[in-house]
């Protein structure tokens, strides 16, 4: 029989039951105290407190047992964990029956609490096992109420709560017992069937998810092959044009040079696009990054040196503010350098002459916060969510640079997310925009 938690972590649930029992023990102690001391209901207080103590001990032992089973990340078999849960539910039913016996038997409305155990059993155990638990609960409850009715065992009356001796009223006892029994079976039936439905849905989602991932992988592999083939052709085109352009094979007139250079430039842009697409696809397909500790400051200075010429030509000032104490971070240095270079070049490209670019690096709760803000064209409203999408380029960016790949920010996002960081963009209130990312200090 399938259960809802067939494929999820039953161990966590076993621990959850232990935590739930701590709460139940507290409720028992408070209920006994309030009933006896506030409501003045007569109860065998000492026996009930003793039961609470036994429960504390039992729960603690169970906790140690679970710890022993799962110590050091061990994952016991589902059968073993199911057995532990079955044992817990059965033991709880027994303990609840004993508590009920000492606190009025059938006259104590707490007998309704058996329903909780049926719900727990139906979710965590097989349907057959859940019906067995329901039968066990009915047997325990019936055993106590009928023996009390027949006078074979003592009845602890709840004086101050119920005046008549209901436990001696045969019709009441029988009626309550029948309703109780049918309730338990119905609860098991309903919960188990809902569980089964959810379990089927969960399986369906998991299968659909697997299929989607397979399709994504196939798509990426296809893109990888395709782009690689295109790259081969482009490399041949570029190699040939370049020779003509360098006039190694004979002189060109001005018009010929201009046309050949145009063709060479376009081939170069196409190559840059294909290379970026290959890189993004490969990053999506490969496994973990090779992380090392490296100097973020050094990386930032490298990127500043790379962008300096372009910034100077446009009269753009670049300020940076790196918080004291920030140096070594953990990650893939080449990819982080590329990401920062990418953001910095974007800022320089889309900031008009004599603008300013500010870089700030701060510590923030276990992360390094990197921000780069400019006085550039900003991001049109509604585009902020899309600019990290593959191939997306906002209208105002296209107006400035027609042939961007639309992949730079997707690669940046992929890199930062692979480092378990976050990347974002926002417009500045005074114009321009800010791109930022966080990088966990230890991945």
């Amino acid at each position: 029989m399938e259960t809802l938690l067939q494929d999820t972590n039953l161990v966590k649930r076993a621990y959850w039951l232990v935590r739930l029992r701590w709460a139940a023990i507290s409720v028992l102690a408070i209920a006994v105290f309030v009933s006896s001391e506030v409501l003045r209901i007569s109860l065998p207080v000492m026996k009930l407190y003793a039961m609470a103590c036994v429960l504390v001990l039992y729960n603690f032992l169970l906790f140690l047992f679970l710890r022993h089973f799962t110590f050091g990340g061990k994952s016991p078999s589902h059968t073993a964990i199911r057995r532990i849960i079955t044992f817990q539910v059965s033991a709880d039913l027994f303990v609840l029956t004993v508590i009920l016996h000492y606190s009025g038997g059938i006259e104590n409305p707490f007998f309704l609490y058996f329903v909780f155990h049926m719900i727990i059993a139906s979710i965590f155990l097989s349907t057959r096992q859940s019906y067995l638990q329901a039968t066990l609960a009915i047997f325990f409850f019936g055993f106590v109420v009928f023996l009390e009715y027949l006078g074979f065992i003592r009845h602890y009356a709840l004086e101050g709560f119920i005046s008549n001796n209901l436990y001696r009223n045969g019709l009441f006892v029988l009626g309550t017992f029948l309703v109780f029994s049918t309730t338990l079976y119905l609860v098991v039936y309903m919960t188990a069937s809902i569980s089964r439905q959810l379990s089927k849905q969960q399986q369906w989602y998991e299968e659909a998810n697997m299929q989607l991932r397979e399709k994504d992988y196939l798509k990426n592999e296809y893109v990888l092959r395709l782009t690689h083939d295109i790259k081969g052709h482009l490399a041949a085109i570029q190699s040939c044009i370049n020779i003509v352009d360098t006039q190694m094979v004979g002189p060109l007139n001005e018009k010929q040079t201009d046309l050949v250079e145009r063709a060479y430039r376009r081939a170069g842009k196409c190559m840059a696009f294909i290379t970026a697409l290959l890189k993004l696809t490969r990053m999506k397909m490969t496994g973990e990054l090779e992380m090392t500790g490296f100097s973020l400051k050094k990386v930032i200075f490298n990127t500043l040196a790379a962008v300096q010429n372009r910034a100077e030509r446009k009269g753009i000032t670049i300020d940076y503010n790196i918080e004291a104490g920030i140096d070594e971070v953990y990650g893939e240095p080449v990819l982080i350098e590329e990401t920062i270079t990418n953001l910095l070049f974007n800022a320089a490209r889309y900031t008009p002459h004599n603008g300013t670019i500010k870089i700030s690096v701060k510590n923030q709760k276990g992360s390094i916060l990197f921000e780069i803000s400019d006085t550039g064209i900003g991001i049109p409203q509604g585009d902020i969510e899309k600019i990290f999408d593959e191939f997306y380029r906002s209208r105002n960016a296209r107006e400035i640079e027609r042939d961007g790949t639309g992949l730079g920010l997707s690669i940046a996002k992929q890199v930062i997310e692979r480092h378990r960081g976050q990347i974002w963009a926002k417009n500045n209130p005074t114009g321009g925009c800010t791109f930022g990312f966080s990088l966990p200090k230890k991945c």
Partner: protein
Amino acid sequence: MGQARILIVDDDPDITEAMKVVLETEGYTVYTAKDKEDGMEQLKTTKLDLIILDVIMNGGRDGFVLSRELKQDAKYKHIPILMVTAVREKTGIDFKSAAGDETWLPLEDFLDKPVKPEVLLKKVKGLLYEL
């Protein structure tokens, strides 16, 4: 002006032609081969000073195989090999650090596609001790 004899082994006829043109302008004698077997034939009949080798030929790894075979053969192991590649994005191999690892990839230098005339000539001259 070099007088050296250079063999280009590449299955892309256009890249081969482009490199041939560049090298010939500098006076080198250039032989071409379209695959590993063709390359071996040329090696047997011609005395060569340099081999320019494509990594992936005909969808396989013939470039790797040929470079290893040549470096294990006493007759040819003195001939420098310049490996031409456009596959770094695909394989993720760092050719810079792999060049010179004699057991894995025995070659003297590497060159990225698309081939830039001035870079090709500089590398070739370097390997022929003409610089």
